[in-house]
């Protein structure tokens, strides 16, 4: 029966939202004749502002936000190895204290007046990207059981038929091991880790390489 073919999505342990929102039935198969209709093409008319690659400041002439300034750079490809040029990468991360500047973040953690925590960049002709931000704070996601969300940066990638929402994590963080989504990734969690590398840039404390591969058939469907 073709409906037995799809993945059964796993529920993140200790994640109440995951329990409430994860479909219980196996994903259904898509007949080949209609497969193409399941491939959205995001139009190439991304909005971004010039200074949005640098989240360490609200604007170039403003003071630097609290915490440790870092740089994240890498390449963007699909599974075939094709470089994704002109892709929109939307970035958001919590501030040094673990607070998002989002109207629905009611954590009460400290807002940093000099940190917006949202930015957008476009990959260049080599499929490369680079942005700066403040190293995000970890925050207590489940006070009742003492589970923290490890430091992470959210990334949303849109480029034609390539679409990915993911998170970059940091190596050697104690909270990585107990994160429900990291646990579901198993050994492949390593692919979601930024890798430290040497930098001589005095403006930043640490530089991370994070090479992104957009997986799945949609990303390569028309190649």
């Amino acid at each position: 029966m073709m409906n037995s073919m799809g993945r059964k999505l796993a529920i993140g342990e200790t994640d109440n939202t995951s329990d409430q929102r994860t479909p219980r039935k196996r994903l259904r198969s898509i007949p080949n004749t209609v497969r193409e209709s399941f491939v959205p093409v995001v139009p190439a008319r991304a909005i971004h502002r010039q200074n949005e690659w640098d989240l360490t400041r609200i604007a170039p002439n403003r003071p630097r936000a609290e915490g440790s300034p870092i740089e994240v750079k890498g390449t963007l490809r699909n599974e075939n190895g094709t470089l994704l040029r002109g892709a929109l990468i939307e970035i958001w991360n919590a501030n040094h204290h673990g607070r998002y500047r989002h109207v629905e973040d009611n954590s009460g953690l400290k807002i940093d007046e000099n940190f917006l925590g949202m930015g957008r960049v476009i990959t260049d002709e080599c499929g490369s990207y680079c942005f700066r931000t403040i190293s995000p704070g970890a925050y207590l996601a489940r006070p009742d059981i003492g589970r923290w969300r490890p430091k992470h940066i959210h990334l949303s990638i849109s480029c034609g038929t390539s679409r990915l929402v993911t998170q970059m994590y940091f190596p050697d963080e104690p909270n990585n091991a107990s994160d429900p989504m990291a646990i579901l990734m198993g050994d492949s969690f390593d692919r979601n880790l930024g890798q430290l590398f040497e930098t001589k840039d005095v403006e930043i404390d640490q530089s991370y390489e994070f090479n992104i591969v957009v997986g799945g058939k949609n990303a390569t469907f028309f190649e």
Partner: protein
Amino acid sequence: MPKKQQRNILLPTNEDTTGPYFPIYFSDESYEDLTQIHSGVVAGPKGQHIILRGRVLDRNGNLANGVLLEFWQANAKGIYRNPSFEDHPDLDPWFDGYGRLRSTTGEYSFRTILPGASPGRAPNITVTIFSDGINRIVTQIFFANQKANKTDPLLTTLDDEDRERLIARFDESSSDGTDFYTLDIVMAGDQETPFFEDFLS
């Protein structure tokens, strides 16, 4: 050498949840209303204006707050703006077919045009849900009173109950000629909406 082996197959970065705080700051009104190219421009695509609306519900029947919804559809003539239809004469210059909106409450309302039937299909809109607690999930929404629903090659893979869960009901026409369709999307539980495997298939 087979074509497959010539390819440089890379291991994908894992998908992850959007978390609860996808920035509202990234919203773009022109993706939330596909009946106009921009609120300040007198230009829009051909087709019947519709509003597709409903609730996104969790396993307990509660609204799934903070979901990010993306829509993908053909134009009024059933043509998608994808590489297969490049330079097709029936492409509509005012219609790309991609929409995106974030719902604070879990209720959604998407203004667009009724998609035409692409060859062999019933009119439908592909919906992608990004949310806290899950990775991307995908389905297609159909429209009541379309004859082709009975023969659509996707709908006919489903049993009667599941098929009904993908067909938006027609509610009313407003005085300005907009047709309202409603469908609740149930992410999990007894009334679960059928979702489809588009990652591995």
